[in-house]
């Protein structure tokens, strides 16, 4: 019992390690000791017992759409300024998926702060809050109000912040609800929805610039990991004869299809295919999305269907795992571009792809990198 008392006391002093940099050196060790410690911590994700270190947890997220649209509980808690920080940490320990502390009303007039916390629907909010208050040694449970979150509220809010972007001279990305600032330039109209690729991110820009250099007219282009479809649409506008976009995320395919329609690109010029990723089980995807997606078939391409230009803007690990797959879809001598990697992840990518590609060149922007090369004409060994 005394141990717990000490724990509470020390958490009080150590929490400031997070907020004030000057105290970092003194309090961080204690913070390390006591952060997120409680024997009764509910594991936030279902844990598999007796796992050796090398195996990760099973995937938490169910098929994309259901987690996306599942309701969540949002709780607004009033508590005193001094303990707000620790209280958010304690809430996270006991089952909150996120806590937000608003800095807006940080004026001296009120001593109270608002913590907004989001819980998954299955959580018992009252139990969690009382446990959190208990672990901090608060005398009373702070007042709070619970409401169920509306799913589409936050989607709308993020969309509001999109603006027209000029990626390079003569190429603009315009959201659906805005008018293009320069009607003469090449404008790609986009409604990103929930897929990646609005044109703002450095990797998207790097890929667009690469595309501009690579496409001369009439090429077959493969967008590996198409997201919102921005690269496929851009390729067609630059003059490619055919764009194919593939992704493992059904929402991405839906988004890309909408965007193609916005830019008046028909399905014969821009083909979109949903492929099964390694982590998601194909049966679930097909069950839910068969009605909407008629292009769910596994992609098996013959020699004549290989591509002249391939761009893959995903993440480091998929790029390393799928290296053979990506390169095998290209014609010999075809140009391949890879992005979605941080500059310090470059050496790994270069190691993995140097036996497969020639003429490797790298462009960087804002700590993100884009690697481009041409497929070797004769691959050694394969």
């Amino acid at each position, binding site marked *: 019992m005394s141990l717990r008392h000490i724990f509470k006391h020390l958490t009080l002093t150590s929490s400031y390690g997070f907020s004030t940099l000057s105290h970092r050196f003194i309090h961080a060790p204690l913070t390390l000791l006591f952060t997120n*410690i409680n024997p009764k911590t509910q*594991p936030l994700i279902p844990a598999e017992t007796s796992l050796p270190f090398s195996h990760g947890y099973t995937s938490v997220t169910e098929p994309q759409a259901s987690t996306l649209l599942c309701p969540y509980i949002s709780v607004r808690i009033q508590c005193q300024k001094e303990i707000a920080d620790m209280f958010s940490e304690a809430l996270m320990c006991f089952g909150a998926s996120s806590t*937000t502390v608003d800095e807006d009303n940080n004026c001296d007039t009120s001593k109270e702060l608002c913590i907004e916390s989001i819980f998954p629907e299955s959580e018992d909010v009252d139990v969690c809050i009382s446990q959190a208050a208990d672990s901090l040694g608060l005398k009373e449970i702070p007042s709070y109000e619970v409401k169920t979150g509306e799913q589409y509220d936050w989607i709308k809010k993020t969309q509001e912040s999109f603006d027209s972007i000029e990626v390079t001279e003569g190429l603009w990305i315009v959201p659906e609800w805005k008018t293009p600032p320069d009607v003469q330039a090449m404008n790609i109209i986009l409604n990103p929805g929930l897929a990646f690729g609005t044109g703002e991110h450095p990797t998207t820009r790097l890929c667009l610039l690469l595309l501009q250099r690579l496409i001369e007219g009439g090429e077959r282009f493969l967008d590996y990991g198409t997201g919102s479809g921005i690269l496929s649409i851009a390729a067609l506008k630059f003059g490619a004869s055919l764009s194919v976009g593939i992704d493992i995320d059904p929402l991405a395919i839906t988004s890309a299809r909408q965007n193609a329609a916005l830019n008046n690109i028909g399905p014969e010029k821009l083909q979109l295919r949903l492929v099964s990723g390694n*982590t998601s089980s194909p049966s679930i995807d097909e069950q839910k999305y068969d009605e909407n997606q008629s292009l769910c078939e596994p992609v098996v391409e013959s020699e004549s269907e290989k591509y002249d230009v391939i761009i893959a803007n995903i993440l480091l690990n998929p790029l390393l795992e799928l290296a053979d797959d990506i390169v095998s879809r290209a014609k010999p001598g075809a140009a391949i571009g890879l992005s979605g990697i941080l500059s310090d992840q470059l050496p790994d990518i270069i190691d993995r792809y140097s036996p497969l590609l020639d003429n490797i060149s790298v462009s960087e922007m804002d700590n993100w990198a884009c690697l481009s090369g041409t497929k070797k004409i004769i691959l050694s060994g394969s």
Partner: protein
Amino acid sequence: MSTLKEILTRRPVAATIRLTVPAGGARPAPPVGPALGQYRLNLMAFCKDFNARTQKYKPDTPMAVTITAFKDSTFEFIVKSPSVTWYLKKAAGIESGSSRPGHVMATTLSVRHIYEIAKIKQSDPYCQYMSLESICKSIIGTANTMGIKVVNELD
């Protein structure tokens, strides 16, 4: 620790958001979506950034991330490695610590496990200046509060 220039150009902070997101698994769904969407932050940019930075962790390890949202809809975030208790539970293969630490022992771990955990923790932004030995000591302390005993060799 901040320079004068940094203080002068410091942007007004709108909010501090704490989240637990599985490594490499950030998606615009709840909890990320509503928490960030409220402040009009670019969700996909955060997801991409976060996923890229957590590539070196095993997929779906829960990472604590603290996001500072500024009033002009930009943001910065710090990703912290999973908590020591989480690592200890995984290493020992148990779901939760003992209910009465100090009295009831849940399980045992060897110093090798502690050493491995300490190495991972050393790359955490708050621990870089600490010697490996002191990190190990604090991990052992944590293990004690969970009822995990540390022995030299596991038999």
